[in-house]
């Protein structure tokens, strides 16, 4: 039957004519495509080179997590990059030195038993419309962050903001908070132009309506201002003509949302000059030729915790079990997975911050000691459920690989770790339900000060995930160290935080694992790219 059909078709339709018609169709489509190619190829592949020469445009590839460009609401990495570079702050940090805040808009001084921080405008700074920055702008910006009650509001909890005169603002707390100068450098505490923001619905209450305006135009005094912004695809920045600092090199900066795989090819072809999200492992092959890799240490602390209460931790709540885990983990193997530039910190505070612990005997690889400690514990080989986010990478480091490596290490010591991967969409909810028996998690700094890591102490944010309370036996052991760190004067503050971390390592359920590397890949025609753990890049210094 089929043979018959074929014969009929062949007889009815001469092949040459069919070929001609089909060929014509294909040719028409190909012509259209070729037209597109011809039109696109010149500007497309030349886009990178054109951007570096004629239009003086810097193109940066990044994976967006942007939600808003309003600094008082923004608390995402892309938002921090943006807010740091379009808004000036009372203080800042220079280069990679995160141990000492320095003046940006204001000088600062303590008084009243370190309970009042006085900010005094340092020289004349101007917003992008030429209006000078005043103390009123600073006070309004801080009060707006407090009043909106968004993600960054906690930064100024318990701080009374007062405009003293045109150049002076005071920040008062009920007890000394020596971290305040460091906190003020947080990108969310960027100084906005009060008059402009008020004119566009701004206020210092949750009803503030200036977000839409701040997503389309910026009201800052830093080197750049928003030219156009799409939350999901692209940010275009242009220079602030009134910027008080040295004139930045680039007239225009385009930050585009691109997946890491595509970033790699973009930077290799020159379509982008900087790629922010290429993993350290992938970046290895990019050092040489037309690209270079700039490596730093990220500000992330990757850590594990085990439920400190019997109800959730079960056998893992035994301090001897946690101590065994600390010595069963091969930290060097984890660093090999994390790539060049990653480090093992001695405690939860990143090594770049004042008060960090460079190493600690409690967190060392010693399989024999691990087995010894495990034998002392109440653990009898039952599975311990280990929660982690299967689709999350921290600076390119896949948490899944870390979880698998830890599982293998613990198995050698006789611990049966049962992995429980969850997508990020449900992982955070599970984590915040405070019911996990054990988990792998990470923490990015809110500000570069050891006091930010009090969240890991009994009864505080991170410790609550592990149900580690001040009333527990180990909580009581740590409590005096917490008090000492909180009340330490500047001179002994670093030592107090180091002692606190050492004690937490000795008795606590939270195990700091590593700080991943932060790799930035650039083309060789840009220089002075300095990765920052706090706000990714200082755009005005890039040459």
């Amino acid at each position, binding site marked *: 039957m089929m043979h018959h*059909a074929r014969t*009929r*078709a*062949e*007889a*009815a*339709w*001469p*092949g040459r004519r*069919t070929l001609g018609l*089909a060929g014509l*169709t*294909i040719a028409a*489509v190909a012509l259209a*495509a070729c037209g597109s*190619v*011809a*039109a*696109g*190829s010149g*500007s*497309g592949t030349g*886009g990178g080179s*054109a*951007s570096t020469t004629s239009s003086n445009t810097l*193109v940066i590839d990044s994976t967006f997590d942007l*939600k808003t460009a309003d600094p008082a609401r923004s*608390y995402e990495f892309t938002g921090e990059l943006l807010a740091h570079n379009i808004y000036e702050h009372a203080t800042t940090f220079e280069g990679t030195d995160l141990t000492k805040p320095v003046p940006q808009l204001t000088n600062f001084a303590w008084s009243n038993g370190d309970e009042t921080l006085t900010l005094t405008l340092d020289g004349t700074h101007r917003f992008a419309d030429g209006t000078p920055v005043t103390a009123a702008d600073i006070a309004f910006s801080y009060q707006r962050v407090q009043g909106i*009650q968004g*993600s*960054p*509001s906690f930064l100024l909890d318990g701080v009374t903001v007062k405009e003293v005169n045109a150049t002076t603002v005071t920040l008062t707390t009920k007890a000394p908070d020596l971290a305040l100068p460091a906190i003020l450098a947080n990108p969310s505490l960027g100084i906005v132009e009060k008059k402009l923001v008020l004119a566009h619905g701004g206020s210092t209450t949750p009803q503030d309506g200036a*977000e839409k305006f701040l997503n389309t135009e910026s009201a800052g005094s830093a080197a750049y201002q928003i030219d*156009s912004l799409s*939350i*999901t*695809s*692209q940010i275009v920045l242009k220079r602030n003509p009134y910027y008080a600092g040295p004139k930045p090199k680039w007239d*225009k900066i*385009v930050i*585009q*949302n691109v997946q890491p*795989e*595509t970033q790699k*090819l973009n930077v290799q*072809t020159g*379509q*982008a000059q900087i790629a922010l999200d290429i993993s350290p492992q992938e970046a290895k092959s990019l050092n040489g030729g037309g690209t270079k890799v700039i490596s730093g240490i990220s500000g992330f602390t990757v850590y594990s915790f085990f439920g400190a209460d019997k109800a959730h931790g079960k056998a893992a709540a035994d301090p001897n079990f946690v101590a065994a885990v600390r010595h069963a983990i091969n930290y060097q193997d984890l660093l090999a997975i994390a790539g060049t530039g990653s480090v093992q910190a001695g405690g939860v505070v990143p090594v770049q911050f004042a008060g960090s612990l460079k190493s600690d005997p409690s967190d060392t690889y010693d399989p024999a000691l691990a087995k010894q400690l495990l034998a002392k514990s109440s653990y009898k080989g039952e599975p311990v459920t280990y929660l982690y986010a299967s*689709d999350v990478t921290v600076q390119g480091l896949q948490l899944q690989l870390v979880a698998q490596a830890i599982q293998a290490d613990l198995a050698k010591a006789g611990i049966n770790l049962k992995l429980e991967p969850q997508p*990020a*969409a*449900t992982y*955070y*909810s*599970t984590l*915040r339900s405070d019911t996990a028996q054990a988990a792998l998690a990470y923490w990015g700094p*809110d500000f570069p000060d050891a006091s930010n890591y009090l969240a890991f102490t009994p009864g505080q*944010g*991170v410790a*609550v995930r592990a149900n580690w309370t001040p009333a527990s036996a180990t909580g009581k052991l740590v409590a005096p160290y917490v008090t000492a760190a909180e009340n330490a004067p500047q001179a002994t503050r670093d030592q107090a935080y180091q002692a606190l971390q050492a004690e937490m390592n000795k008795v606590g359920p939270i195990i700091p694992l590593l700080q991943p590397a932060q790799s930035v890949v650039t083309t060789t025609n840009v220089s002075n790219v300095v990765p920052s753990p706090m706000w990714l890049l200082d755009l005005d210094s890039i040459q």
Partner: protein
Amino acid sequence: MSHQQALAPPADQVRGRRAHPLARYIAARLGISVLLLWGITLVTFILTNLVPADPLAAVLGDQAAADPVIVAQYRKQMGLNAPLPLQYWHYLVRLLHGNLGTSAQTRNPVAADLATVFPATAELSCFVLVASVLLGVGLGLYAALRHRRLADQVIRFASVTGISMPTFWLALLAFYVFFYKLRWLPGSGRLDPTLTPPPHVTGFYTIDAALAGQWSVLGNALGHLVLPGLVLTLYMMGLLVRFTRSAILDVLNEPYVTAARAKGLGPGRIIVGYVLRGALLPILTMVGLAFGSLLSGAVLTEQVFAWNGLGQYAFLAATKLDLQAIMGVAIVVGAVYIVINFIVDLLTGVIDPRVRRG
């Protein structure tokens, strides 16, 4: 006789209008479409609420999530305090006013976000559809007419290859070869980063650039369409080739084709007037489904090519647990399928009277 009675048309005319098969057919299809759309809202709402995750986890940072005042404020803002049926009712009421809620991810109205990203996907889809139909139907027809000969085997092999290659892999491969290695085509995005998009009229960069007389932008936008378009076309074309070939082969066996030949009609008339016409309905259905799937957003292709369309928006919404955006995307995708099916049904009814009479 009342005024109404005086104006009333004769009974047979009323009966005639009511009985018009095409009108009844359209009305029935329209009614089904509305019901389907409502069903989609219900299913989407139930499914998004079944996700074992707190929407606040996606919105608030660790520190803010630990502050009960902030949590309470956000729960109120997002309407999460009301019981689920009431939340659904509020959602339906808002939906009827064209309000799809506010995206937790972008903080924009979801409708505004979708209005921004949908034209990007639609532009790519139209490009792919035109290329796929021309190539797919043309090659499918040719393969059927050269049944079991070398050309048929080659086309079948090519179509199976197009269908079976994973799109994300093909996208990466095309990107690597044509953008990175050969540098023939531009890479990611809808335009080079140094260019400014044309003034918004339709959201199609090609059309908007042409309307604005920005020819270099038009050329650049067309160039950026080629690579993602090629990847999607290979898949769609493969589907259409197979479907068209099979439909044409079925028709070639029909007695009316034999009769046409026996009447001495020329091959061109037989192919156009009998074979293609007979195979049109299944091909039309397939083209409709293919267009629907394209308009629903090619998630992986859009990710690889940083194409800021519906697929990329849906991907971000899903990974960030942006429930309002997820529901908005689901409703738009559902509506797209319903509208396209509705149009296909109408065309089917117009082309084949048996359908509307049935």
